[in-house]
């Protein structure tokens, strides 16, 4: 019993020894190389990390900046406008339908506008607009308003309209088809465009007075050109009585600037990523080349070509992998910081780019290991060991 036990144990030990040394020796060589030359190894790893971090930050920015810039471009206001066909009013539920067209949480803002031509006391025609002030304020950031109306019967008066209806900011009277209304000016509006000649009222007050319902809905949709287009098709379907039109001035200007910025960013990101790959190549090649004595000793001790190649490749791959993982998280941090510093909004970390960064890092590391190895292969180990 015991004899077989011992025999078994001895056999087990022999088996283990037969198998174990190879794997543990390989791992040990990898580990010792890194520990003994930690300065050089640290330098190579650092280059790897920096390169991976820069590449990650660039890729993350490239993807995210377009979304960020689109949000900035929405400050230009509506990019889609819905008007009743042939100057008709829109159906009463049009605004609700527009808002239900996209799911909740979609980046979309719809503002209704209704128009009427009223007369002042001295028979001057003036355009009065009914709208939702809270929404209009969000949509039209560029409106320069001295004070937004917050009480009943207060109106927002365009700069040029003010000189006609209420030069001293006094309350004034308007008539629409014989129906008068008394309004107090809340504040002045300045835009440099048509709005300056108009008077703005709250939609419900406007409707009570004139009976005119909204004829225009201005919509700001945040998204890519394709998303905006599909949203417009959707709107045209649910509002068959209305014309859904793109605001070409805004859409084309945005597309133009965005395309140029994207192209520039793409070119810059490519250059930066190439430079960091070059940095890795230079450092890792030095690191491998520097160890030509290890290489020579291994060969002198009878290591096969494939074992030596495998060793250096494994070392480079391990370095690439560790560098990629550490660099990825640092790069995400850089991208988030840039987003915060430049766009005042955090950049969303894109974990989907991790495989690319990982594969790229390992590939560059392997290339920078294989290049010096092929150069060394032609040299006799003895020459290297003699220090020539």
């Amino acid at each position: 019993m015991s004899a077989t036990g011992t025999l078994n144990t001895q056999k087990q030990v022999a088996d283990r020894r037969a198998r174990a040394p190879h794997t543990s020796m390989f791992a040990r060589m990898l580990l010792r190389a890194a520990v003994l030359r930690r300065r050089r190894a640290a330098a190579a790893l650092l280059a790897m990390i920096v390169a991976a971090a820069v590449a990650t930050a660039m890729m993350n920015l490239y993807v995210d900046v377009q979304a960020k810039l689109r949000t900035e471009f929405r400050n230009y206001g509506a990019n889609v406008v819905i008007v009743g066909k042939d100057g008709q009013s829109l159906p009463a539920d049009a605004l609700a339908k527009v808002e239900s067209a996209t799911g909740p949480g979609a980046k979309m803002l719809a503002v209704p506008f209704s128009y009427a031509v009223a007369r002042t006391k001295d028979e001057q025609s003036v355009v009065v607009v009914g709208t939702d002030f809270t929404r209009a304020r969000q949509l039209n950031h560029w409106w320069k308003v001295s004070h937004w109306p917050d009480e009943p019967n207060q109106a927002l008066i365009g700069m040029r309209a003010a000189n006609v209806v209420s030069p001293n900011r006094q309350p004034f009277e308007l008539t629409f088809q014989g129906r008068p209304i008394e309004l107090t000016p809340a504040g002045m509006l300045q835009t440099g465009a048509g709005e300056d000649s108009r008077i703005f009222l709250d939609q419900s007050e406007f409707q009570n007075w004139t009976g005119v319902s909204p004829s225009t809905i201005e919509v700001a949709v945040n998204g890519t050109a394709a998303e905006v287009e599909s949203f417009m098709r959707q709107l045209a379907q649910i509002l068959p009585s209305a014309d859904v039109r793109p605001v070409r001035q805004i859409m084309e200007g945005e597309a133009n600037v965005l395309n140029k910025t994207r192209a520039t960013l793409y070119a810059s990101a490519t250059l930066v990523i190439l430079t960091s790959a070059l940095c890795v190549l230079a450092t890792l090649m030095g690191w491998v080349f520097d160890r030509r004595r290890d290489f020579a000793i291994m060969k002198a001790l009878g290591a096969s070509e494939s074992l030596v190649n495998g060793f250096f490749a494994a070392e480079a791959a391990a370095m690439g992998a560790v560098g990629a993982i550490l660099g990825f998280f640092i790069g995400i941090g850089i991208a988030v910081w840039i987003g915060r510093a430049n766009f005042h909004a955090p950049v969303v970390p894109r974990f989907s780019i991790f495989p690319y960064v990982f594969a790229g890092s390992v590939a560059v590391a392997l290339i920078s290991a294989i290049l010096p190895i092929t150069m060394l292969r032609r040299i006799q180990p003895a020459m290297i060991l003699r220090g020539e």
Partner: protein
Amino acid sequence: MFPRIVYESFRHQARRKLLAGIAITLGVAVATAMIAVATDIGDKINRELRSYGANLVVTPQEDTLDVEVGGVNLKPPSDGAFLNEADLPKIRGTFWHNNIVGFSPMLPVTVKIGGGAKDVTLVGTYFNKPLHFGKQDFITGVRITHPWWKVSCGDGRLARPGRVEDSPAACWPNDDSQDILVGERLAAKLGKKPGDTLNVTGRQLTIFGILSTGAAEDDEIIAPLAVAQQILGKPGAVRRVYVSALTKPQDAFATQDPNTMTPEVRDRWYCSPYVQSIAYQLQEVIPHSHAEQIRQVAQNEGTVLSRIKGLMLLVTLAALFASALAVSAAMATAIFERRVEVGLMKSLGAGNLAVAAIFFAEALLLALVGGIAGFSAGALLARQIGRSIFNSQISIEPVLFPVILAIAVIVTFAGSAAAIRRAVKFDPVFALRGEG
């Protein structure tokens, strides 16, 4: 002896020197290209932002209110004041005339078409009008200030909204002709196509093309300014002028009132291309006018511009950082490989200083050669980027050359310094025995 060591080192280790030189060249090239792009991006994007159209509008000072709803003008046509067309070329005489990309006068007139009773707005403007002011000849009109206006002409095809092919210049009417453009919705309503004639208040005008803008003009007729003036019976009259100008993003200083400034401050304000100061200058050259920024365009371009500039600045910093690192890595590797040489020199009696001097001299040579090659390559790269993305040159300031060269030398030195220090400190005995 010193120059000889350096010379021989380059002669015998050409491959290693080449590797380090290539790293420096590439690093400097990327840095140069990125700096050139980053310094020019503001100007380039500013020009691209002009595709949003005019950012200034000039109106008569004593104008009556516009009564306009949904593109239909309800204001009596001869009501209110007008600007004088003869004053317009003076826009080119303002201080910032080089920043004025273009301008378009507008004269809306309400007309009856087809002998019927239907009121339609006809707007007179410049399409592509050659003008001259003093010795300057220039071309201006809606083709410059309203780049999103698309005209489809001929072959019976009507432009579909959103999918209009870029029209060649031939589709735009001549400014001296009696040819008109008809908005696409109006054309569809009337069943007219290019080549037809349209009866506009008794005049037979030829439809040259169908205009698509996605705005009120789709229901209007656009005609040469002279035609609108003849219909209105007021030669030389212009209702308003849209001006497209390159401006500097506004800051607190820009919004100050020039009338309350001291003369020096006022000069500084006047000589900055803020949208406010350009408006002020337009008012000066066009009599009885009021110039105002179109806030939707003018207010937003500053933000977009500063975001893109900020982004490119950060990306450029990343590029500079990466190329500095690449250069130092290459230098460190190149020096580390030469410990044996250091050992030999030291055992022959060379001091640390002498050895370091040799390495620094080599680094300086490499940095200068790599810097010059890299600068030229970077300039080419920047030019290529400018041409392929912005269709215009990105020119490199000659001032940049010594700066780039200095940066290249500093980075190369910094990258070499640590490696040189270690190589010098290394015990010659170990180095010569090949250990380390």
